[in-house]
């Protein structure tokens, strides 16, 4: 597990318009640019927000990342709370 790389990916997408564009254009290729564990890669590919939260992604990195992925606040909260 490489929480640093996982959080770095979220932060790069959140903070860098070019990274965000790359990510949205080809997510699988973008993920290849980070040294992620299988669990982290799977959670990202599926946008499993509950899993990402429990893997330890800081909430202020995770929530903006999910906004970029088009997730509403109610859906985000329901997901991390395990209500979905």
């Amino acid at each position, binding site marked *: 597990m490489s929480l*640093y790389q996982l*959080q*770095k990916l979220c*932060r790069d997408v*959140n*903070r860098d318009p070019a990274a965000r564009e790359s990510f949205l254009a080809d997510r699988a290729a973008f993920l290849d640019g980070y040294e992620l564990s299988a669990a982290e890669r799977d959670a990202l590919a599926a946008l499993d927000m509950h899993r990402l*939260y429990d893997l330890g992604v*800081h*909430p*202020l*990195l*995770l*929530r903006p990342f999910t906004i970029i992925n088009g997730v509403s606040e109610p859906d*985000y*909260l329901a997901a*991390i*709370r395990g209500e979905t």
Partner: protein
Amino acid sequence: MPIVFAAAVSHAPGVTAWPDAAPPEQKDAIYAAYHKVRDDLAAAGADAVVMLTSEHWTNFFFDQMPAYCVGRGAQFDGPVEPWLNIPRTRVPGDPELAAGILDALYAAGINPSFSDDLELDHGTMVPVHFLLSGTTTPVVPIILNTLAEPMPSAESCFRFGAALGAYLADADRRVAVIATGGLSHAPGERAHGTVDSDFDAAFLADMAAANHDALRAIDHDRMAAAGGGTHEIRAWIALSAATGGWPGRLLTYHAVKPWATGFGLMEFSPAV
């Protein structure tokens, strides 16, 4: 000379991004309080504002995380958030004041980071927007780490504020000090939307009374239990130390559910 003005203000981004989601009586009270702080700050005639603040992964990340970072730049651009409803602004800095602050802190054995190139997010831009729009007053932002453990303790932040205040008391400048952040909030967490009103009430009472023994002893875990955003109150603690113990007057406090934050504004002066 002594600090000419001191206040502490919350900066929950909903206040400008979705203001009307809040109940009107809450929103109106908060806006009125922010406008009063703006007017009182203007009347104080400060020639610079030191802002004790926090940020949200804008400049700093786990690759490099300063406990304190003094913004020594000639200018700062912000906000980074396009959804904040605050226009992109170039905020003038005060490199000379920042350098003087840094020299004094280093002489006191406190060795903060510094940066000549910071972007500002809602943490600093919300108060700058409300308090300094239309002015040319320079700002020295001092960003405290309130994101990633280990964070500077309440005691450490208190000593930081005391050293800052000691320098400003002797400096030949009319300086206002604003603390921003807090109060209890848990953004993006499972507890998102929950406000710890008891914690906030006790903290505000200690700030109003300048109860330094209590403020400098606030436990990290107690702040975390009130929500991860609560760590931002370190800026308020540093402010109380910087004033040398000025009592505070609470202008307003509301647990604003749609902004998911215990939102408060307080002014400080030697005689309340």
